[in-house]
């Protein structure tokens, strides 16, 4: 029986996801609970578990395709259970198929029925090429077959150590280690080619002096998202220094008394407040560029992502509808979500759906940085460290508290002048806290 697996509603508000990686191939046997694909939603990449045990007979999307909740994306034959005979079945049928093709080539005219329930049309070149090499059946144990698949080992190339050359679990483990070593060698060779310095070549070749660490899932996601952003969006960055001396004094005045109420009043809530005020006037900064339809998608909500440094890597918890919160509420919220992110207590719903992101690298120590846009947003605000500096005011050198801001934005949809205007408006608000309170 065919089971059409619809992309499930994996959490509040997620309507679609992008398939970043298929974890099964057509023909694979899967068990209930086995992940079928890695799907990236707004902010997190999550594995989608199969609700059924059976054989994957069709994958209805390719890597990178967007699927919506309710879309059938995998078809599973649930009549067959999680058996390990499947690869043989598959290969047998393929052998049949191949023979038929040869007959056709030889000019046999007539009906050749080659359909098989087991075999699904495969669009993926990868599985095609794999299947072709699998024409002859390899003697292997069930566990060895599955392990080979999972470790990406071509079982046909493995010399079996079992009776009659049967490929055993151990052989696959050994082969996968060899592959890793080979891959490492290739990387080293490539590096050597591009390295002119002979001495440097020597140090690279010394395996023991390098360490290879596999990326964690979060790191992979960060890496993919950063690449996607930087290679898709032509970034440009505007920077400016803001004299926030008044704001500094203002904050100082209330900071301690609020502390008694356990509110940690930082500059961040003011910056968020000012940003939202500007976003309302310049909606292109709170938008997404829909490349496929050449449309600008303006967002009428203000979900502000706060880039947060955690042990596991960068995370961006989101303050939803931040425009509806007061300065003090924002102060509380900022503290809450960043703590949750740091303590790994953040929920999926708090990591998705931001419309604009703020990154406060100054909290760690930088003055200026060039932030990378949190794709698919259109802009990101970088906040540097506030320092006291001498400035010239009314022809005199005076002390002032300076806040450096850097704004990266999607240059496809936002011109340089708009970037400068954005920062000017930020300046107006943050340099005059009263104005900020009135306007924001």
């Amino acid at each position: 029986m065919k089971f059409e697996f619809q992309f499930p509603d994996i959490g509040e508000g997620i309507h679609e996801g992008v398939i970043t990686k298929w974890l099964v191939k057509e023909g694979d046997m899967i068990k209930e609970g086995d992940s079928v694909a890695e799907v990236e939603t707004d902010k997190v990449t999550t594995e989608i578990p199969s609700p059924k045990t059976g054989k994957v007979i069709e994958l209805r999307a390719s890597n990178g395709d967007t699927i919506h909740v309710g879309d059938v994306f995998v078809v599973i034959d649930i009549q067959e259970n999680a058996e390990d005979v499947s690869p043989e079945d598959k290969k047998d049928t393929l052998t049949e198929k191949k023979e038929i093709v040869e007959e056709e080539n030889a000019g046999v005219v007539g009906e050749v029925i080659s359909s098989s329930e087991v075999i699904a049309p495969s669009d993926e070149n990868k599985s095609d090429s794999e299947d072709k090499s699998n024409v002859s059946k390899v003697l292997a144990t069930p566990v060895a077959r599955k392990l080979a698949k999972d470790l990406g080992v071509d079982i046909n190339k493995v010399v079996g150590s079992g009776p009659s050359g049967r490929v055993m679990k151990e052989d696959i483990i050994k082969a996968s280690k060899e592959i890793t070593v080979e891959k490492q060698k290739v990387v080293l060779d490539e590096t050597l080619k591009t390295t002119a310095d002979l001495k440097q070549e020597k140090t690279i070749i010394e395996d023991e002096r390098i360490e290879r660490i596999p990326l964690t899932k979060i790191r992979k996601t960060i890496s993919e998202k950063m690449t996607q952003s930087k290679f898709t969006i032509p970034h440009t960055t505007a920077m400016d220094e803001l004299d926030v001396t008044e704001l500094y004094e203002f904050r100082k005045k209330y900071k301690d008394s609020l502390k008694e109420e356990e509110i940690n009043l930082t500059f961040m809530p003011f910056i968020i407040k000012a940003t939202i005020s500007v976003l309302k006037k310049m909606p292109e900064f709170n938008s997404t560029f829909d490349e496929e339809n050449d449309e600008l998608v303006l967002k009428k909500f203000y979900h502000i992502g706060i880039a947060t440094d955690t042990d596991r890597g960068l995370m961006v918890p989101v303050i939803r509808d931040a425009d509806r919160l007061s300065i003090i509420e924002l102060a509380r919220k900022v503290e809450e979500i960043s703590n949750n992110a740091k303590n790994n207590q953040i929920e999926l719903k708090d990591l998705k759906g931001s419309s604009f992101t703020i990154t406060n690298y100054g909290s760690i120590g930088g003055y200026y940085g060039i932030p990378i846009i949190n794709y698919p947003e259109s802009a990101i605000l970088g906040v540097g460290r506030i320092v006291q500096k001498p400035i010239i005011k009314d022809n005199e050198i005076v002390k002032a508290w300076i806040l450096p801001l850097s704004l990266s934005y999607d240059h496809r949809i936002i011109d340089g002048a708009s970037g400068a205007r954005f920062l000017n408006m930020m300046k107006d608000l943050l340099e005059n806290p009263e104005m900020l309170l009135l306007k924001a």
Partner: protein
Amino acid sequence: MKKYDIVVLGGGPGGYIAAIKSSQLGKKVAVVEKDKLGGICLNWGCIPTKTLLSYAKHFQDILRSEDFGIGGIDKEKVYVDIEKMMLKKDETVNKLVSGIHMLFKKNGVDLYNGFGKAIDENNINVNGENLSFDNLIIATGAKAYIPNIKGLKESFESGKAINNIGILGLKDKLDTVLVLGNDTYAVEYATFYNAIGADVTMIFEDKNILPDYDSELSQTLERQLKKSGVKLVNNANIKEVRDDRVLVFQKDKEKEFNADKYIVFYGIRPNLSGIENLKLTKDKNGFIQTDEKLRTNIKNIYAIGDVNGKMPLAHVASFEGVIASENICGIDSKIDYLKIPKVVYSFPEISSIGLSEAEAKIRNINYSIGKFPLSANSMANLKGETSGFVKILADKDMYGEIIGLHIIGNDASNMIAEGASVMNLEGTIYDLAKVVHPHPTLTEAIVEASLDAIDKPLNI
């Protein structure tokens, strides 16, 4: 001086199989045996014990023939003629031993009957004759271990204490038996004597009667033995063995036991005489150290069977013989002790392969477990032998690969082979759950246990 490709020292189940296999692989082979071909197993071990147990089972069946609707048997008149039983057993043993002589002839294996003394790493002396060899397979087996318990040695000398060899020479029926120790033989002889009507008491140091088996099996057997009337004295320290009594400390209390004979089983120690000239690496109990190909530290010398102490069982010795021969002949093969079944021929039988649940825990394996009681199996019911169960363990992180099968029940010895087959093919619990078994058979319980490990059995 004769020259052989391979000399096998010892003609037990390890040695004689190694010789036949080597000969089949084209080698010129000689076996040196000081006593009888077939070794302990055929002459004083597996075969005679199981023969006697099988007779005892018949006796038990006769006693309960009313259960099967068979009348006319006067239980008072039915008795065991131990002398005839032993003679019958000898017939079986002799037939099997002569079978090996025939196999040697057929396969062109030369037999030297005499004590073999290794001169160096390429020469051995038998009855004054020198045989040179390229490879030596040591298959000298083991002997009973007699621990240093006060008076035990003397008891053996007086004939009050006996082990398997002594038992098989007995012509009289014993009324009372003390079994000291708790290995497989101890349990089997306790079972035998209990079944033929003797009063049996087992005294042992451990908590469980079979510490090497999954504790659930051991506990179930303990209950069954007690039900049959065997007295179990566990956690016991034997203080002194005297011909008139055995003094035992149990929970700081001194107890005394007496019986017609003391049957003593405290494991084994290797037979190393004749190979003193070879500088072999041994473990603390003297067993020759070998690897998965049965190689010793000396390049051309292999050691198989009880003498390496790995798993002192006849079928292990035989298989080790095959592996050693193959490796000598250039065939790359090895043994995996986790895929070898072991059996206790108690009533009911116990069989086991792979990891016990406790071992799986120690190894941090993420396992799933399936169980099925024989009381829910139709064959067990129709035979009226429903005590026992099947327990199966699978590695969840390795696609459900079966890592252990443990059975207690009538005919467990035959059922375990299924686990051995599947495990050697690295089969999974999902594979096994989908294998159709004939009905009614006891092996259906294995399928049900597999289903239980995955989800739910069908017949309970």
